[in-house]
Protein backbone atom coordinates (compact mmCIF):
# COMPACT_ATOMS: atom_id res chain seq x y z
CA UNK A 1 0.00 0.00 0.00
CA UNK A 2 1.28 3.43 -0.86
CA UNK A 3 1.98 5.94 1.83
CA UNK A 4 -0.70 8.34 0.56
CA UNK A 5 -3.46 5.69 0.71
CA UNK A 6 -2.30 4.68 4.14
CA UNK A 7 -2.36 8.25 5.45
CA UNK A 8 -5.79 8.87 3.92
CA UNK A 9 -7.29 5.70 5.41
CA UNK A 10 -5.72 6.37 8.77
CA UNK A 11 -7.04 9.94 8.81
CA UNK A 12 -10.50 8.79 7.81
CA UNK A 13 -10.51 6.26 10.63
CA UNK A 14 -9.47 8.94 13.14
CA UNK A 15 -12.32 11.10 11.92
CA UNK A 16 -14.78 8.26 12.51
CA UNK A 17 -13.40 7.69 15.99
CA UNK A 18 -14.05 11.32 16.87
CA UNK A 19 -17.57 11.16 15.41
CA UNK A 20 -18.12 7.88 17.30
CA UNK A 21 -17.10 9.51 20.54
CA UNK A 22 -19.42 12.45 19.89
CA UNK A 23 -22.28 9.99 19.28
CA UNK A 24 -21.55 8.17 22.53
CA UNK A 25 -21.50 11.44 24.45
CA UNK A 26 -24.72 12.58 22.79
CA UNK A 27 -26.36 9.28 23.64
CA UNK A 28 -25.23 9.50 27.26
CA UNK A 29 -26.15 13.11 27.90
CA UNK A 30 -29.30 13.54 25.86
CA UNK A 31 -30.88 10.09 25.75
CA UNK A 32 -29.57 7.74 28.45
CA UNK A 33 -29.37 10.32 31.23
CA UNK A 34 -32.45 10.38 33.45
CA UNK A 35 -32.83 14.16 33.12
CA UNK A 36 -30.72 15.76 30.37
CA UNK A 37 -31.45 19.33 31.46
CA UNK A 38 -30.04 18.66 34.93
CA UNK A 39 -26.90 17.24 33.31
CA UNK A 40 -26.30 20.52 31.51
CA UNK A 41 -27.47 22.83 34.27
CA UNK A 42 -25.62 21.16 37.15
CA UNK A 43 -26.95 19.22 40.14
CA UNK A 44 -27.33 22.32 42.33
CA UNK A 45 -29.45 24.31 39.89
CA UNK A 46 -32.98 25.57 40.55
CA UNK A 47 -36.10 24.51 38.63
CA UNK A 48 -36.13 27.78 36.68
CA UNK A 49 -32.48 27.35 35.66
CA UNK A 50 -33.16 23.79 34.52
CA UNK A 51 -36.09 24.96 32.44
CA UNK A 52 -34.00 27.74 30.92
CA UNK A 53 -31.22 25.31 30.05
CA UNK A 54 -33.71 22.87 28.54
CA UNK A 55 -34.91 25.65 26.29
CA UNK A 56 -31.40 26.89 25.48
CA UNK A 57 -30.18 23.45 24.41
CA UNK A 58 -33.48 22.51 22.74
CA UNK A 59 -33.84 19.58 25.12
CA UNK A 60 -37.63 19.44 24.75
CA UNK A 61 -37.38 18.83 21.00
CA UNK A 62 -37.20 15.42 19.32
CA UNK A 63 -33.81 13.71 19.49
CA UNK A 64 -32.78 14.54 15.90
CA UNK A 65 -33.34 18.25 16.50
CA UNK A 66 -31.31 17.96 19.69
CA UNK A 67 -28.64 16.14 17.74
CA UNK A 68 -28.49 18.88 15.14
CA UNK A 69 -27.96 21.60 17.73
CA UNK A 70 -25.51 19.40 19.64
CA UNK A 71 -23.31 18.91 16.58
CA UNK A 72 -23.54 22.58 15.59
CA UNK A 73 -22.53 23.57 19.12
CA UNK A 74 -19.64 21.12 19.26
CA UNK A 75 -18.15 22.31 16.01
CA UNK A 76 -18.69 26.01 16.70
CA UNK A 77 -16.92 25.82 20.07
CA UNK A 78 -20.11 26.50 21.99
CA UNK A 79 -19.46 23.88 24.67
CA UNK A 80 -21.83 25.10 27.31
CA UNK A 81 -21.34 26.97 30.54
CA UNK A 82 -19.77 25.40 33.58
CA UNK A 83 -22.23 25.49 36.50
CA UNK A 84 -19.31 25.43 38.92
CA UNK A 85 -17.24 28.28 37.50
CA UNK A 86 -20.11 30.16 35.82
CA UNK A 87 -17.93 30.62 32.73
CA UNK A 88 -18.01 29.19 29.22
CA UNK A 89 -16.26 25.82 29.15
CA UNK A 90 -14.20 26.82 26.15
CA UNK A 91 -12.58 29.77 27.94
CA UNK A 92 -11.80 27.58 30.96
CA UNK A 93 -10.11 25.12 28.62
CA UNK A 94 -8.07 27.96 27.13
CA UNK A 95 -6.82 28.73 30.60
CA UNK A 96 -6.16 25.19 31.81
CA UNK A 97 -5.08 23.24 28.73
CA UNK A 98 -1.68 24.92 28.15
CA UNK A 99 -0.61 24.32 31.78
CA UNK A 100 -1.20 20.57 31.45
CA UNK A 101 0.16 20.41 27.93
CA UNK A 102 3.44 21.89 29.11
CA UNK A 103 3.64 19.53 32.09
CA UNK A 104 2.75 16.51 29.97
CA UNK A 105 5.24 17.29 27.22
CA UNK A 106 8.09 17.74 29.71
CA UNK A 107 7.18 14.49 31.47
CA UNK A 108 6.78 12.73 28.13
CA UNK A 109 10.24 13.70 26.87
CA UNK A 110 11.98 12.67 30.09
CA UNK A 111 9.94 9.49 30.41
CA UNK A 112 10.64 8.27 26.89
CA UNK A 113 14.33 9.17 27.16
CA UNK A 114 14.78 7.52 30.54
CA UNK A 115 12.84 4.38 29.71
CA UNK A 116 14.59 3.85 26.38
CA UNK A 117 17.98 4.26 28.04
CA UNK A 118 17.09 1.78 30.76
CA UNK A 119 15.76 -0.65 28.16
CA UNK A 120 19.03 -0.55 26.22
CA UNK A 121 21.08 -0.82 29.41
CA UNK A 122 19.18 -3.88 30.61
CA UNK A 123 19.57 -5.58 27.23
CA UNK A 124 23.35 -5.26 27.50
CA UNK A 125 23.52 -8.01 30.07
CA UNK A 126 20.16 -9.76 30.41
CA UNK A 127 19.54 -11.21 33.87
CA UNK A 128 22.65 -9.45 35.16
CA UNK A 129 22.63 -7.42 38.36
CA UNK A 130 21.74 -4.15 36.61
CA UNK A 131 18.97 -5.76 34.58
CA UNK A 132 17.47 -7.33 37.69
CA UNK A 133 17.65 -4.07 39.60
CA UNK A 134 15.84 -2.26 36.80
CA UNK A 135 13.25 -5.05 36.61
CA UNK A 136 12.54 -5.00 40.33
CA UNK A 137 12.31 -1.20 40.30
CA UNK A 138 9.81 -0.89 37.51
CA UNK A 139 7.71 -3.85 38.60
CA UNK A 140 7.30 -2.20 41.99
CA UNK A 141 6.83 1.34 40.71
CA UNK A 142 4.21 0.45 38.14
CA UNK A 143 2.15 -1.36 40.76
CA UNK A 144 1.83 1.82 42.78
CA UNK A 145 -1.41 3.72 42.25
CA UNK A 146 -0.61 7.21 40.91
CA UNK A 147 -1.81 8.91 44.06
CA UNK A 148 0.54 6.88 46.23
CA UNK A 149 3.60 8.02 44.27
CA UNK A 150 2.39 11.62 44.37
CA UNK A 151 1.71 11.34 48.08
CA UNK A 152 5.07 9.78 48.84
CA UNK A 153 7.01 12.45 46.95
CA UNK A 154 4.90 15.18 48.52
CA UNK A 155 5.55 13.89 52.03
CA UNK A 156 9.26 13.40 51.44
CA UNK A 157 10.35 16.38 49.38
CA UNK A 158 7.71 18.96 50.13
CA UNK A 159 6.54 18.51 53.71
CA UNK A 160 9.68 16.64 54.76
CA UNK A 161 12.76 18.36 53.33
CA UNK A 162 10.92 21.46 51.97
CA UNK A 163 12.95 21.12 48.75
CA UNK A 164 9.95 21.66 46.46
CA UNK A 165 6.67 23.54 46.93
CA UNK A 166 3.54 21.50 47.60
CA UNK A 167 0.98 23.22 45.37
CA UNK A 168 0.20 25.50 42.41
CA UNK A 169 2.05 25.79 39.07
CA UNK A 170 3.91 28.92 40.15
CA UNK A 171 4.37 31.08 43.25
CA UNK A 172 1.06 33.02 43.34
CA UNK A 173 2.76 36.37 44.04
CA UNK A 174 5.16 35.97 41.13
CA UNK A 175 2.39 34.53 39.00
CA UNK A 176 0.30 37.67 39.42
CA UNK A 177 3.12 39.98 38.36
CA UNK A 178 4.67 38.09 35.46
CA UNK A 179 3.59 39.72 32.17
CA UNK A 180 2.01 37.79 29.33
CA UNK A 181 4.27 37.03 26.42
CA UNK A 182 3.72 39.39 23.50
CA UNK A 183 4.01 37.96 20.07
CA UNK A 184 5.82 40.35 17.72
CA UNK A 185 3.87 41.02 14.56
CA UNK A 186 5.53 43.41 12.07
CA UNK A 187 2.22 44.94 10.95
CA UNK A 188 0.16 45.21 14.13
CA UNK A 189 3.06 45.61 16.53
CA UNK A 190 3.09 43.42 19.64
CA UNK A 191 0.09 41.16 20.04
CA UNK A 192 -1.00 39.28 23.17
CA UNK A 193 -3.68 36.66 23.47
CA UNK A 194 -1.65 33.81 22.08
CA UNK A 195 -3.26 31.64 24.76
CA UNK A 196 -1.56 28.36 24.00
CA UNK A 197 1.83 29.94 24.75
CA UNK A 198 1.20 32.64 27.33
CA UNK A 199 -0.77 30.32 29.63
CA UNK A 200 2.16 27.91 29.89
CA UNK A 201 3.86 29.02 33.12
CA UNK A 202 7.41 27.89 32.30
CA UNK A 203 7.45 28.81 28.62
CA UNK A 204 5.82 32.17 29.21
CA UNK A 205 8.32 33.09 31.95
CA UNK A 206 11.15 32.02 29.68
CA UNK A 207 9.86 34.04 26.74
CA UNK A 208 9.37 37.25 28.71
CA UNK A 209 12.72 36.69 30.42
CA UNK A 210 11.42 36.74 33.99
CA UNK A 211 13.98 34.52 35.73
CA UNK A 212 12.41 34.58 39.18
CA UNK A 213 9.11 33.41 37.72
CA UNK A 214 10.93 30.86 35.57
CA UNK A 215 12.76 29.22 38.45
CA UNK A 216 9.60 29.28 40.55
CA UNK A 217 7.59 27.61 37.77
CA UNK A 218 10.30 24.99 37.25
CA UNK A 219 10.54 24.12 40.94
CA UNK A 220 6.74 23.83 41.12
CA UNK A 221 6.78 21.45 38.16
CA UNK A 222 9.48 19.06 39.43
CA UNK A 223 7.35 16.82 41.66
CA UNK A 224 4.38 16.57 39.25
CA UNK A 225 6.75 15.73 36.39
CA UNK A 226 8.56 13.05 38.41
CA UNK A 227 5.22 11.53 39.44
CA UNK A 228 4.03 11.46 35.84
CA UNK A 229 7.29 9.80 34.76
CA UNK A 230 6.86 7.09 37.38
CA UNK A 231 3.19 6.51 36.54
CA UNK A 232 2.98 3.27 34.52
CA UNK A 233 6.76 3.17 34.41
CA UNK A 234 8.46 0.28 32.62
CA UNK A 235 6.32 -0.47 29.58
CA UNK A 236 8.86 1.02 27.19
CA UNK A 237 11.81 -0.36 29.17
CA UNK A 238 10.51 -3.86 28.65
CA UNK A 239 9.63 -3.38 25.00
CA UNK A 240 12.98 -1.80 24.12
CA UNK A 241 14.84 -4.52 26.01
CA UNK A 242 13.04 -7.36 24.20
CA UNK A 243 13.44 -5.75 20.79
CA UNK A 244 17.11 -4.91 21.48
CA UNK A 245 17.74 -8.56 22.35
CA UNK A 246 16.05 -9.60 19.13
CA UNK A 247 18.07 -7.16 17.08
CA UNK A 248 21.33 -8.19 18.72
CA UNK A 249 20.57 -11.70 17.50
CA UNK A 250 20.31 -10.62 13.86
CA UNK A 251 22.81 -11.54 11.18
CA UNK A 252 23.84 -7.97 10.42
CA UNK A 253 24.80 -7.42 14.04
CA UNK A 254 26.85 -10.59 13.99
CA UNK A 255 28.49 -9.34 10.80
CA UNK A 256 29.28 -6.02 12.43
CA UNK A 257 30.87 -7.84 15.36
CA UNK A 258 32.73 -10.20 13.03
CA UNK A 259 34.17 -7.19 11.24
CA UNK A 260 35.81 -6.38 14.55
CA UNK A 261 33.81 -3.27 15.36
CA UNK A 262 33.89 -2.14 18.94
CA UNK A 263 30.85 -3.12 21.05
CA UNK A 264 29.82 0.53 21.43
CA UNK A 265 29.71 1.04 17.69
CA UNK A 266 27.78 -2.19 17.18
CA UNK A 267 25.18 -1.19 19.72
CA UNK A 268 24.80 2.51 19.09
CA UNK A 269 25.33 2.66 15.33
CA UNK A 270 23.88 -0.67 14.17
CA UNK A 271 21.44 -2.06 16.71
CA UNK A 272 19.96 0.91 18.53
CA UNK A 273 17.89 2.50 15.79
CA UNK A 274 16.09 -0.67 14.81
CA UNK A 275 15.46 -1.68 18.37
CA UNK A 276 13.85 1.63 19.29
CA UNK A 277 11.33 1.38 16.48
CA UNK A 278 8.73 -0.83 18.26
CA UNK A 279 8.71 1.60 21.18
CA UNK A 280 7.03 4.17 18.95
CA UNK A 281 3.87 2.04 18.88
CA UNK A 282 3.56 2.67 22.62
CA UNK A 283 3.92 6.43 22.36
CA UNK A 284 0.21 7.02 21.86
CA UNK A 285 -0.56 4.86 24.89
CA UNK A 286 2.05 6.65 26.98
CA UNK A 287 0.60 10.01 26.07
CA UNK A 288 -2.93 8.85 26.92
CA UNK A 289 -1.56 7.48 30.19
CA UNK A 290 0.01 10.82 31.05
CA UNK A 291 -3.30 12.57 30.51
CA UNK A 292 -4.96 10.11 32.91
CA UNK A 293 -2.12 10.48 35.37
CA UNK A 294 -2.42 14.25 35.26
CA UNK A 295 -5.94 14.01 36.74
CA UNK A 296 -4.62 12.50 39.94
CA UNK A 297 -1.26 14.27 39.95
CA UNK A 298 -2.72 17.73 39.50
CA UNK A 299 -5.36 17.09 42.16
CA UNK A 300 -2.78 16.11 44.74
CA UNK A 301 -0.29 18.84 43.91
CA UNK A 302 -2.98 21.48 43.38
CA UNK A 303 -1.41 22.14 39.99
CA UNK A 304 -4.11 24.14 38.22
CA UNK A 305 -4.22 22.54 34.81
CA UNK A 306 -6.66 20.52 32.74
CA UNK A 307 -6.34 17.47 35.01
CA UNK A 308 -7.23 19.56 38.03
CA UNK A 309 -10.16 21.02 36.13
CA UNK A 310 -11.44 17.56 35.13
CA UNK A 311 -11.02 16.30 38.69
CA UNK A 312 -12.96 19.27 40.09
CA UNK A 313 -15.68 18.68 37.51
CA UNK A 314 -15.88 15.00 38.47
CA UNK A 315 -16.12 15.78 42.16
CA UNK A 316 -18.85 18.38 41.66
CA UNK A 317 -20.61 16.67 38.72
CA UNK A 318 -19.95 19.66 36.50
CA UNK A 319 -20.97 17.79 33.36
CA UNK A 320 -20.55 20.50 30.68
CA UNK A 321 -16.90 20.85 31.74
CA UNK A 322 -16.45 17.09 31.71
CA UNK A 323 -17.88 16.72 28.23
CA UNK A 324 -15.87 19.63 26.86
CA UNK A 325 -12.62 18.27 28.25
CA UNK A 326 -13.47 14.73 27.14
CA UNK A 327 -13.99 15.92 23.57
CA UNK A 328 -10.76 17.90 23.72
CA UNK A 329 -8.70 15.06 25.21
CA UNK A 330 -10.12 12.63 22.67
CA UNK A 331 -9.21 14.88 19.77
CA UNK A 332 -5.71 15.52 21.13
CA UNK A 333 -5.00 11.84 21.75
CA UNK A 334 -6.46 10.67 18.46
CA UNK A 335 -4.53 13.26 16.52
CA UNK A 336 -1.32 12.35 18.33
CA UNK A 337 -2.00 8.67 17.56
CA UNK A 338 -2.55 9.61 13.94
CA UNK A 339 0.77 11.44 13.79
CA UNK A 340 2.57 8.52 15.47
CA UNK A 341 0.96 5.98 13.15
CA UNK A 342 1.75 7.96 10.03
CA UNK A 343 5.31 8.42 11.21
CA UNK A 344 5.55 4.73 11.95
CA UNK A 345 4.06 3.78 8.61
CA UNK A 346 6.65 6.03 7.01
CA UNK A 347 9.52 4.45 8.94
CA UNK A 348 8.34 0.85 8.69
CA UNK A 349 6.22 0.06 5.60
CA UNK A 350 5.19 -3.33 7.01
CA UNK A 351 2.77 -1.66 9.44
CA UNK A 352 0.71 -0.15 6.64
CA UNK A 353 -0.96 -3.49 5.95
CA UNK A 354 -3.59 -3.34 8.68
CA UNK A 355 -5.49 -0.39 7.24
Amino acid sequence: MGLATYVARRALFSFFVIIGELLIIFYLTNIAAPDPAVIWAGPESTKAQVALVAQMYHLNSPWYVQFYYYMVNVFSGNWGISPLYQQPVISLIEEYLPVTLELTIIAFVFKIGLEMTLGVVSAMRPNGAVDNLIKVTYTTVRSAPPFLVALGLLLLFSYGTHTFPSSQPIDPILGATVPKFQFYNPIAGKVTGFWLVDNMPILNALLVGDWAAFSSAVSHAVLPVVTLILFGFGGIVRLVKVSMLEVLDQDYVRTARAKGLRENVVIFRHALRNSLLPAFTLIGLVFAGLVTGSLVVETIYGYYGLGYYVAESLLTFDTPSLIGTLILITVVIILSNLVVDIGYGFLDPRTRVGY
Partner: protein
Amino acid sequence: MSKSSSSVTLGIIFGNWATLVGVGILVVFLVLSALAAWPVTYHLIARYSPDALNFGSSNAPPSLAHLFGTDAEGRDIFARVIAALPIDIVIPFEVVGASVGIGFLLGTFAGYLGGWVEELVLRVADLFFAFPSVVLALTISAILGATDEGLRVVFTELALIVVGWPFYTRLARAQVISLKQMPFVRAAEASGLGKLRIIRMHVIPHLASVVAVYATLDMGTTLLLYSVFAFFGLGVAPPTPELGRMVYDGLTALPGNWWWSFFPGLILMILALGFSLAGEGLRDVFDPRLRGQR
Protein backbone atom coordinates in the same frame (compact mmCIF):
# COMPACT_ATOMS: atom_id res chain seq x y z
CA MET B 1 11.27 -38.80 28.45
CA SER B 2 10.70 -35.16 29.17
CA LYS B 3 9.25 -33.83 32.37
CA SER B 4 5.48 -33.68 32.48
CA SER B 5 4.03 -30.26 31.77
CA SER B 6 2.54 -29.88 35.23
CA SER B 7 5.88 -30.40 36.90
CA VAL B 8 7.43 -27.80 34.57
CA THR B 9 4.62 -25.46 35.60
CA LEU B 10 5.23 -26.06 39.28
CA GLY B 11 8.95 -25.72 38.71
CA ILE B 12 8.51 -22.29 37.21
CA ILE B 13 6.12 -21.14 39.89
CA PHE B 14 8.27 -22.35 42.78
CA GLY B 15 11.64 -21.87 41.18
CA ASN B 16 11.00 -18.20 40.60
CA TRP B 17 10.85 -16.26 43.84
CA ALA B 18 9.05 -13.33 42.19
CA THR B 19 6.16 -15.53 41.09
CA LEU B 20 6.11 -17.14 44.50
CA VAL B 21 5.87 -13.73 46.19
CA GLY B 22 3.06 -12.75 43.81
CA VAL B 23 1.06 -15.90 44.42
CA GLY B 24 1.71 -15.57 48.16
CA ILE B 25 0.40 -11.99 48.22
CA LEU B 26 -2.74 -13.01 46.34
CA VAL B 27 -3.41 -15.99 48.62
CA VAL B 28 -3.00 -13.86 51.74
CA PHE B 29 -5.28 -11.13 50.42
CA LEU B 30 -7.91 -13.55 49.14
CA VAL B 31 -8.03 -15.23 52.55
CA LEU B 32 -8.17 -11.89 54.34
CA SER B 33 -10.97 -10.59 52.17
CA ALA B 34 -12.92 -13.84 52.46
CA LEU B 35 -12.67 -13.54 56.24
CA ALA B 36 -13.53 -9.84 56.15
CA ALA B 37 -16.69 -10.46 54.15
CA TRP B 38 -18.54 -11.93 57.18
CA PRO B 39 -18.96 -10.01 60.43
CA VAL B 40 -18.11 -13.02 62.59
CA THR B 41 -14.83 -13.83 60.89
CA TYR B 42 -14.09 -10.13 60.30
CA HIS B 43 -13.47 -9.67 64.00
CA LEU B 44 -10.80 -12.37 63.94
CA ILE B 45 -8.63 -9.91 62.01
CA ALA B 46 -9.65 -6.44 63.06
CA ARG B 47 -10.33 -5.33 66.59
CA TYR B 48 -12.55 -2.37 65.73
CA SER B 49 -15.62 -1.96 63.59
CA PRO B 50 -14.88 0.03 60.38
CA ASP B 51 -17.55 2.60 61.14
CA ALA B 52 -17.03 2.96 64.88
CA LEU B 53 -16.54 6.66 65.57
CA ASN B 54 -14.26 7.44 68.46
CA PHE B 55 -13.50 11.12 68.75
CA GLY B 56 -11.44 10.46 71.86
CA SER B 57 -8.69 8.88 69.75
CA SER B 58 -9.01 10.81 66.48
CA ASN B 59 -5.92 11.41 64.32
CA ALA B 60 -3.90 8.91 66.34
CA PRO B 61 -0.60 7.92 64.68
CA PRO B 62 0.13 4.24 63.97
CA SER B 63 0.61 2.28 67.18
CA LEU B 64 0.03 -1.22 68.51
CA ALA B 65 -3.59 -0.37 69.33
CA HIS B 66 -4.18 1.18 65.90
CA LEU B 67 -1.76 -0.44 63.45
CA PHE B 68 -2.43 2.09 60.67
CA GLY B 69 -3.52 4.94 62.97
CA THR B 70 -6.97 6.53 63.00
CA ASP B 71 -8.70 9.13 60.83
CA ALA B 72 -10.24 12.48 61.83
CA GLU B 73 -13.32 10.77 63.24
CA GLY B 74 -11.26 8.29 65.21
CA ARG B 75 -12.11 5.34 62.95
CA ASP B 76 -9.41 2.69 62.93
CA ILE B 77 -7.74 2.76 59.51
CA PHE B 78 -6.58 -0.86 59.70
CA ALA B 79 -10.19 -1.92 60.35
CA ARG B 80 -11.40 0.16 57.42
CA VAL B 81 -8.71 -1.25 55.10
CA ILE B 82 -9.72 -4.80 56.03
CA ALA B 83 -13.39 -3.98 55.55
CA ALA B 84 -12.62 -2.47 52.14
CA LEU B 85 -10.73 -5.53 50.86
CA PRO B 86 -13.69 -7.69 49.73
CA ILE B 87 -15.12 -4.87 47.59
CA ASP B 88 -11.80 -3.81 46.13
CA ILE B 89 -10.95 -7.38 45.17
CA VAL B 90 -14.37 -8.39 43.85
CA ILE B 91 -14.74 -5.41 41.53
CA PRO B 92 -11.67 -6.18 39.36
CA PHE B 93 -12.87 -9.79 39.14
CA GLU B 94 -16.27 -8.64 37.92
CA VAL B 95 -14.89 -6.09 35.46
CA VAL B 96 -12.18 -8.32 34.01
CA GLY B 97 -14.53 -11.31 33.99
CA ALA B 98 -17.14 -9.46 31.97
CA SER B 99 -14.56 -7.90 29.63
CA VAL B 100 -13.00 -11.30 29.01
CA GLY B 101 -16.42 -12.88 28.47
CA ILE B 102 -17.53 -10.33 25.89
CA GLY B 103 -14.19 -9.69 24.21
CA PHE B 104 -13.09 -13.32 24.10
CA LEU B 105 -16.30 -14.59 22.52
CA LEU B 106 -16.48 -11.79 19.97
CA GLY B 107 -12.81 -12.20 19.09
CA THR B 108 -13.03 -15.97 18.77
CA PHE B 109 -16.06 -15.86 16.49
CA ALA B 110 -14.67 -12.95 14.49
CA GLY B 111 -11.37 -14.74 13.96
CA TYR B 112 -12.89 -18.09 13.13
CA LEU B 113 -15.78 -16.99 10.95
CA GLY B 114 -13.84 -14.25 9.12
CA GLY B 115 -15.55 -12.20 6.42
CA TRP B 116 -17.90 -9.35 7.30
CA VAL B 117 -18.36 -10.56 10.90
CA GLU B 118 -14.65 -10.17 11.50
CA GLU B 119 -14.53 -6.80 9.77
CA LEU B 120 -17.45 -5.44 11.79
CA VAL B 121 -16.24 -6.71 15.16
CA LEU B 122 -12.71 -5.47 14.55
CA ARG B 123 -13.77 -2.01 13.47
CA VAL B 124 -16.02 -1.59 16.50
CA ALA B 125 -13.27 -2.85 18.77
CA ASP B 126 -10.78 -0.47 17.14
CA LEU B 127 -13.21 2.36 17.68
CA PHE B 128 -13.43 1.65 21.40
CA PHE B 129 -9.73 0.96 21.61
CA ALA B 130 -8.88 4.35 20.14
CA PHE B 131 -10.78 6.27 22.81
CA PRO B 132 -8.90 7.71 25.74
CA SER B 133 -10.43 4.98 27.86
CA VAL B 134 -10.08 6.35 31.35
CA VAL B 135 -11.49 9.77 30.61
CA LEU B 136 -14.33 8.20 28.64
CA ALA B 137 -15.10 5.81 31.48
CA LEU B 138 -14.93 8.61 34.05
CA THR B 139 -17.40 10.66 32.01
CA ILE B 140 -19.80 7.75 31.48
CA SER B 141 -19.79 7.01 35.15
CA ALA B 142 -20.13 10.66 36.18
CA ILE B 143 -22.98 11.43 33.77
CA LEU B 144 -25.03 8.35 34.54
CA GLY B 145 -24.23 8.28 38.22
CA ALA B 146 -24.72 12.00 38.85
CA THR B 147 -28.15 11.63 40.35
CA ASP B 148 -27.97 8.29 42.13
CA GLU B 149 -25.15 7.65 44.55
CA GLY B 150 -26.02 3.97 44.98
CA LEU B 151 -25.85 3.21 41.25
CA ARG B 152 -22.52 4.96 40.71
CA VAL B 153 -20.40 1.87 41.28
CA VAL B 154 -22.51 -0.08 38.77
CA PHE B 155 -21.97 2.57 36.11
CA THR B 156 -18.29 2.70 36.93
CA GLU B 157 -18.01 -1.04 36.40
CA LEU B 158 -20.00 -0.81 33.17
CA ALA B 159 -17.73 1.98 31.98
CA LEU B 160 -14.63 -0.09 32.74
CA ILE B 161 -16.11 -3.02 30.83
CA VAL B 162 -16.95 -0.79 27.87
CA VAL B 163 -13.32 0.25 27.58
CA GLY B 164 -11.92 -3.14 28.64
CA TRP B 165 -13.38 -5.69 26.21
CA PRO B 166 -11.69 -4.63 22.91
CA PHE B 167 -8.29 -5.77 24.17
CA TYR B 168 -9.51 -9.36 24.57
CA THR B 169 -11.24 -9.26 21.20
CA ARG B 170 -7.97 -8.41 19.52
CA LEU B 171 -6.06 -10.95 21.59
CA ALA B 172 -8.48 -13.81 20.91
CA ARG B 173 -8.81 -12.97 17.24
CA ALA B 174 -5.05 -12.89 16.70
CA GLN B 175 -4.69 -16.27 18.38
CA VAL B 176 -7.60 -17.84 16.48
CA ILE B 177 -6.22 -16.71 13.13
CA SER B 178 -3.08 -18.73 13.70
CA LEU B 179 -4.96 -21.63 15.30
CA LYS B 180 -7.21 -21.87 12.26
CA GLN B 181 -4.27 -23.03 10.16
CA MET B 182 -3.25 -25.75 12.63
CA PRO B 183 -3.53 -29.35 11.38
CA PHE B 184 -5.85 -30.43 14.17
CA VAL B 185 -8.39 -27.73 13.34
CA ARG B 186 -8.18 -28.52 9.63
CA ALA B 187 -8.67 -32.18 10.52
CA ALA B 188 -11.74 -31.38 12.60
CA GLU B 189 -13.12 -29.39 9.68
CA ALA B 190 -12.37 -32.22 7.27
CA SER B 191 -14.19 -34.69 9.50
CA GLY B 192 -17.32 -32.58 9.11
CA LEU B 193 -17.71 -31.09 12.59
CA GLY B 194 -19.92 -28.02 12.86
CA LYS B 195 -18.34 -24.60 13.30
CA LEU B 196 -19.75 -24.06 16.77
CA ARG B 197 -18.48 -27.42 17.89
CA ILE B 198 -14.99 -26.78 16.52
CA ILE B 199 -14.86 -23.43 18.27
CA ARG B 200 -16.07 -24.95 21.53
CA MET B 201 -14.02 -28.16 21.50
CA HIS B 202 -10.86 -27.25 19.65
CA VAL B 203 -10.33 -23.51 19.57
CA ILE B 204 -11.42 -22.18 22.95
CA PRO B 205 -9.39 -24.64 25.07
CA HIS B 206 -6.24 -23.48 23.31
CA LEU B 207 -6.98 -19.84 23.94
CA ALA B 208 -7.92 -20.19 27.57
CA SER B 209 -4.39 -20.20 28.95
CA VAL B 210 -3.24 -17.13 27.04
CA VAL B 211 -6.34 -15.22 27.99
CA ALA B 212 -5.93 -16.30 31.62
CA VAL B 213 -2.42 -14.82 31.65
CA TYR B 214 -3.50 -11.47 30.31
CA ALA B 215 -6.59 -11.43 32.52
CA THR B 216 -4.40 -11.88 35.61
CA LEU B 217 -2.14 -9.03 34.52
CA ASP B 218 -5.23 -6.97 33.74
CA MET B 219 -6.62 -7.58 37.23
CA GLY B 220 -3.84 -5.48 38.74
CA THR B 221 -4.33 -2.68 36.22
CA THR B 222 -8.09 -2.71 36.75
CA LEU B 223 -7.63 -2.63 40.50
CA LEU B 224 -5.52 0.52 40.17
CA LEU B 225 -7.86 2.04 37.61
CA TYR B 226 -10.89 1.39 39.77
CA SER B 227 -9.08 2.95 42.71
CA VAL B 228 -8.75 6.13 40.65
CA PHE B 229 -12.52 6.09 40.12
CA ALA B 230 -13.07 5.52 43.82
CA PHE B 231 -10.60 8.32 44.52
CA PHE B 232 -12.89 10.69 42.61
CA GLY B 233 -15.98 9.47 44.44
CA LEU B 234 -17.33 7.28 41.63
CA GLY B 235 -17.11 4.06 43.63
CA VAL B 236 -19.27 2.49 46.30
CA ALA B 237 -21.43 4.97 48.22
CA PRO B 238 -20.12 6.05 51.62
CA PRO B 239 -19.95 5.09 54.47
CA THR B 240 -18.78 1.77 52.97
CA PRO B 241 -14.99 2.02 53.15
CA GLU B 242 -12.94 1.82 49.98
CA LEU B 243 -9.19 2.08 49.54
CA GLY B 244 -9.09 4.69 46.76
CA ARG B 245 -11.62 6.92 48.49
CA MET B 246 -9.73 6.67 51.79
CA VAL B 247 -6.65 8.06 50.05
CA TYR B 248 -8.70 11.02 48.82
CA ASP B 249 -10.30 11.63 52.22
CA GLY B 250 -6.90 11.52 53.86
CA LEU B 251 -5.55 14.30 51.62
CA THR B 252 -7.52 16.82 53.66
CA ALA B 253 -5.43 15.91 56.69
CA LEU B 254 -2.03 16.48 55.09
CA PRO B 255 0.71 17.09 56.04
CA GLY B 256 0.01 16.02 59.63
CA ASN B 257 -2.10 12.87 59.45
CA TRP B 258 -0.22 11.17 56.58
CA TRP B 259 -1.09 7.60 57.60
CA TRP B 260 -4.73 8.11 56.63
CA SER B 261 -3.89 8.27 52.91
CA PHE B 262 -0.67 6.33 52.96
CA PHE B 263 -1.71 2.90 54.25
CA PRO B 264 -4.74 2.38 51.97
CA GLY B 265 -2.53 3.40 49.03
CA LEU B 266 0.22 1.03 50.15
CA ILE B 267 -2.22 -1.88 50.42
CA LEU B 268 -3.45 -1.15 46.88
CA MET B 269 0.14 -1.21 45.69
CA ILE B 270 0.94 -4.54 47.36
CA LEU B 271 -2.21 -6.10 45.94
CA ALA B 272 -1.48 -4.80 42.42
CA LEU B 273 2.08 -6.08 42.75
CA GLY B 274 0.68 -9.51 43.64
CA PHE B 275 -1.41 -9.61 40.48
CA SER B 276 1.42 -8.44 38.28
CA LEU B 277 4.03 -10.85 39.68
CA ALA B 278 1.63 -13.79 39.55
CA GLY B 279 0.52 -12.81 36.04
CA GLU B 280 4.06 -12.62 34.77
CA GLY B 281 4.84 -15.97 36.35
CA LEU B 282 1.83 -17.45 34.55
CA ARG B 283 3.05 -15.91 31.32
CA ASP B 284 6.38 -17.69 31.73
CA VAL B 285 4.46 -20.95 32.06
CA PHE B 286 2.16 -20.47 29.10
CA ASP B 287 4.29 -18.40 26.78
CA PRO B 288 7.67 -20.13 26.73
CA ARG B 289 9.08 -17.72 24.14
CA LEU B 290 9.37 -15.00 26.76
CA ARG B 291 10.61 -17.30 29.50
CA GLY B 292 13.42 -15.70 31.46
CA GLN B 293 13.88 -12.70 29.22
CA ARG B 294 11.48 -10.22 30.71
